């Protein structure tokens, strides 16, 4: 998995390329935590190029969203394929996250 990070105004957009799983979830976590340390409070994770996520990946998203909300911000998700949506529904995490159909929609939601 690789990730591209770009700033859109005050929103950090992280585009993932590959699966978000136990072997690489720390890269996403550390990147966002570093940006939080620098003042970022609004984050969109774009899953357009991700096939699946495991429980560790889901856990990192939960952890980062919690941290950002504690600081008055949020982490929102975009471009989930049908499998990813199913994972969020099975785990009921769809209730915890704002999930947008596109990156633009996620950006506009802030």
């Amino acid at each position, binding site marked *: 998995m690789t990730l591209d990070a770009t700033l859109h105004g005050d929103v950090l957009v992280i585009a993932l390329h590959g*699966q978000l799983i*136990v*072997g690489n979830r720390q890269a996403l976590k550390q990147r966002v935590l570093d940006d939080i340390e620098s003042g970022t409070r609004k984050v969109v994770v774009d899953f357009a190029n991700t096939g699946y996520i*495991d429980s560790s990946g889901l856990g*990192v998203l939960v952890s980062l969203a919690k941290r950002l909300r504690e600081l008055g911000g949020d982490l929102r998700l975009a471009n989930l394929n049908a499998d990813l949506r199913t994972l969020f529904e099975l785990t009921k995490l769809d209730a915890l996250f704002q999930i947008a159909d596109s990156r633009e929609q996620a950006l506009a939601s802030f």
Partner: protein
Amino acid sequence: MVSSSALDFRIPSDLARIEAIVAQVVHRCRECRFDARQLSLNVPVALTEAIANAMLRGNGEDAAKEVRIRAEVSEARLVVEVEDEGAGFDLDACCTDPTTPENLEREDGRGLFLMRTLMDEVVRVEGASNVVRLTLRRR
């Protein structure tokens, strides 16, 4: 369980090795005409969870300890056994529901839930508490 056509891997407890093993099992399931959703969701996620559990909990993240993955795939079903070098554990004792309101914001605790939800059967192998067997019938 393992026939001459089965996949059989022994790998060190290195999380970076999981994805390639999973891809090989998925490939074999594709050859056996498993349903697209099973190929893209059920098999990769459940198998990733099982191998990660073996490395992290069974082997305690000790890179010197190995995980063995044996997969037998047919047009009827996938059966995978994941074996670690740990003391074993009671699957039925690990029954936390991560979807309840009090657990929803926890970072951990979804692995076994996903394995059980995405597979038809997840059991500890009789007489070998450090071996977990996952079964998925082809759709």
